[in-house]
């Protein structure tokens, strides 16, 4: 293999900020409320160390083309610390001029000064956790912002020069009506963001909303209602010019999240920070999710708590079940290029069965989820693991 090729291997970097002002009622992500600035500083310094030690391992082989700072609520960090983090990446890795550099931000944590500072630090994209524009639903989710703050943050971000903004929305909340949801979608479209993510609420064990449901305080929305919301959203977004490109994501042409697409395309990405996951050079690994371990880990591998060298069959099955999340599906020629094998030699039985169940559809070149398959995608994916 040519040396030049290796040097230009693209890499995405995910940086995890596990801090929030307050934990949302549906959230089971790794995040902590009530942290102070000095703690943020130490954590950032640890991540800077981690980036440095990874770069030694990667030894100049990669060119970074996406960075995604997620959380938690990264926007509660001071712009200086966020700037330090990006600088740590810039200092250690080649980063493409046109790299997509995203920060997740929550309305209510953003000021014009902060947004300008983010822009100056190098961020090119903002992913905003709007979730809903309905005060009642926001309250049920335990969000700390108001609908007005979403509008405000959005226009402030625009003014600060962000021309690539995503809005996250959640639907399928207990008691939510079709009308409420369509209003949310319309309002989001009305702001004309470049990208909209629309997630069906997942009730995770241990969250506050889970307890509400178990104790009978609220009732889960019937699946049928949830699905009507989902398909209505796809239809409305498509009409408004947003291409539905992944189960829960739609974007204007050219604005699909390049970073997130890496997850679904079996591309390399490095996860930095507490509990972050990586897939680099065929190896999946995860950092410890114990904050004390992470903070004290001063060796290269002290932070890694799990590691798995993907076998070829792991790669193949992941390529398939992740690839099928994309509405374009998987391409048989690409599959052959990637693995030197014919997709149908490996999966004809499973695939025919799923096509028979109306969950997949194919043409000469591609295989993708049907409309029903989008609703029952786990039924499809589990056949390929």
């Amino acid at each position, binding site marked *: 293999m040519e040396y030049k090729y290796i040097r230009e291997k693209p890499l995405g970097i*995910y940086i*995890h900020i596990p801090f929030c002002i307050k934990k949302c009622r549906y959230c089971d*992500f790794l995040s902590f409320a009530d942290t102070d600035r000095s703690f943020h500083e130490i954590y950032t310094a640890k991540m800077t160390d981690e980036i440095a030690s990874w770069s030694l391992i990667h030894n100049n082989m990669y060119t970074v083309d996406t960075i*995604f700072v*997620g959380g938690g609520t990264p926007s509660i960090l001071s712009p200086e610390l966020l700037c330090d983090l990006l600088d740590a990446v810039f200092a250690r890795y080649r980063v493409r001029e046109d790299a997509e550099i995203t920060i997740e931000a929550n309305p209510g944590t953003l000021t014009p000064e902060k947004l300008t500072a983010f822009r100056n630090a190098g961020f090119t994209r903002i992913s905003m956790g709007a979730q809903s524009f309905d005060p009642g639903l926001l309250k049920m989710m335990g969000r700390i912002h108001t609908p007005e703050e979403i509008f405000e943050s959005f226009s402030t971000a625009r003014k600060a020069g962000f021309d690539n903004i995503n809005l996250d929305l959640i639907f399928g909340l207990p008691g939510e009506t079709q009308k409420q949801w369509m209003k949310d979608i319309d309002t989001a479209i009305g702001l004309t963001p470049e990208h909209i993510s629309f*997630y*069906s*609420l*997942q009730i995770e064990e241990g969250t506050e909303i889970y307890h509400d449901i178990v104790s009978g305080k609220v009732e889960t929305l*019937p*699946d*049928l209602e*949830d*699905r009507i919301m989902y398909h209505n959203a796809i239809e409305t977004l498509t009409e408004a010019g947003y291409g539905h490109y992944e*189960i*829960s994501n739609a974007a204007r042409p050219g604005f699909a999240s390049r970073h*997130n697409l*890496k*997850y*679904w395309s079996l591309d390399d*990405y490095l*996860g930095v920070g507490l509990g*972050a*996951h*990586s*897939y680099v050079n065929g190896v*999946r690994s*995860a950092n410890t999710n114990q904050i004390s371990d992470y903070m004290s880990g001063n060796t290269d591998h002290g932070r890694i708590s*799990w590691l*798995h060298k993907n076998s070829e069959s792991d790669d193949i099955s*992941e390529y398939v*079940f*992740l690839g099928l*999340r994309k509405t374009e599906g998987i391409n048989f020629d690409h599959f052959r290029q990637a693995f030197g094998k014919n997709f149908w030699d490996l999966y004809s039985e499973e695939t025919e069965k799923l096509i028979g*169940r*109306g969950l997949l559809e194919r043409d000469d070149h591609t295989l993708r989820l049907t409309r*029903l398959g*989008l*609703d*029952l*995608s*786990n*039924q499809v*994916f*589990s*056949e390929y*693991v």
Partner: protein
Amino acid sequence: MKNIRNFSIIAHIDHGKSTLADRILQTTGVVADRDMKEQFLDNMELERERGITIKLQTTRIPYKAKNGETYVLNLIDTPGHVDFTYEVSRSLAACEGAVLVVDATQGVEAQTLANVYLALNENLEILPVLNKIDLASAEPERVKDEIEEIIGIDATNAPLISAKEGIGIADVLEDIVANVPAPSGDPDGKLKALIFDSYYDNYKGVVVYARVFDGSIRKGDIIRLMNSKKDHEVTEVGYFSPGPVPSDSIESGEVGYICAAIKQVADARVGDTITLAADPAPEPLPGYKKVQPMVYCGVYPAEGEKYESVKDAIEKLQVNDAAFHFEPETSAALGFGFRCGFLGLLHMEIIVERLEREFDLAVITTSPSVVYKVVMNDGTTEMIQNPSNLPDPLRIEHIEEPIVKADIMIPKEYVGTVMELAQERRGRMLHMEYITENRVQLHYELPLNEVIYDFFDALKSKTRGYGSLDYEFIRYEPSKIVKLDILLNREQVDAFSMLVHESKAYYRGRFVCEKLKEIIPRHQFEIPIQASIGQKVIARETVSAYRKDVIAKCYGGDISRKRKLLEKQKEGKKRMRQFGSVEVPQEAFTAVLKFDENK
């Protein structure tokens, strides 16, 4: 021989039999205190959990008595459940005496009586002992009266003990030395030894527990098992202390073990007589019986490809359990499996649990069934233990079901409730007697199939644990038995079919439909669940179709978590059985058996 004492301990369940055995081993130093697990003799994990003895342990105990002489006490354990009556009787036959443990807070119970009858039948000297004397609720005088009144044994000098606290153990030992007769037998006579238990050892083959009555056994002897008519060369003899200790011989009056390269326990059946091939005894010891299973069910590998492993495991278990029967059978729904026969439901549960724990195999069991006698129009009869094999109803003249005689002992205040229970289970009361002022024994005839499910549990719960039960098969009797079928998505699933009394069919059918509705996951289509008798549908439920099965959010590249979820889902699917287009989780088969009539 005069210093040997062979004895058993008998008791109603929970009266403290195993605890007393443990304490005796500890007091005499056979087992060091530090090695003392709770209830040493019940060495199967399962036994400890359930508080019952399944496989016997027997132990030689050297004991220096107060009279200065050293005795050899052979403690012969007995299983503690009604399913194992025959095994108990053979263990008792190996003894000259039995220590009868009676809970001083509870008094005489049905199994106490059942065990005493067995012991008396073997002409044993019975030594009553009152246990749990440390408890405030102990009423030793009342219980002594009860023993004298009900059993007719003098309990005046019965030791008052607390096995748990180690009180009075020495008294029990002295009592044994003084009152259990020394064995009699002819040391020079033709060999006669009774097999009272056996287990399979990977290295030694079957290890036989035997009591030598006449003659002696030593290594190199060619022995003959008189009932199974097979000869074997003895490779080792010895005794348990409590682990096996090889010795030169087992002499007349002694208890010990024999290894003779016997390949399975069924070749060395409990109750068989060992003699010498070269110089056989004229006739075997009395009492041998080939035990017959009372309850049958289908046992199928959860994963079809494990058939051979299940077969191996079942064979291994049978090697160790002569009362357990099996033969291959095929189910349209479950594929290749086995029809297995058990002494009772507990025996069945034990075998299934052992398959799962010791062999790490997942199995599916079908509804347990008793053996029905089907009388055909042409006068011939067929014994049916598998509902699927029921002949065409048009050819059947009538069906007979097994009836048992059940002795139920309860405090008098529960008479009404228990009579109601027995009535629900189609019981016929024979008579009722006041054993004491407060205790009543009810004698019933009950269909066995009403007893095998949960009668005992129901009895316990309705009498706050005070009720006790003992039962034995008496005869077959014509009955209105119908075949209840279950249909999933309009296709009959043979593994769910059961034979039930007409009067119970509706409740049973409704229960199974409701249960299956809870357990069968939603599919892409609606699934009707129906219970039917012949063409007539008597109950119906519907599993609605699912609409959504997605992971909406991809957690920051955490593919492993997602993969795990999908793998779990796939694994769950693998554990499902496909019936037509319907996938049924395995727990469905167990769940439909957990039928509570009182709900």
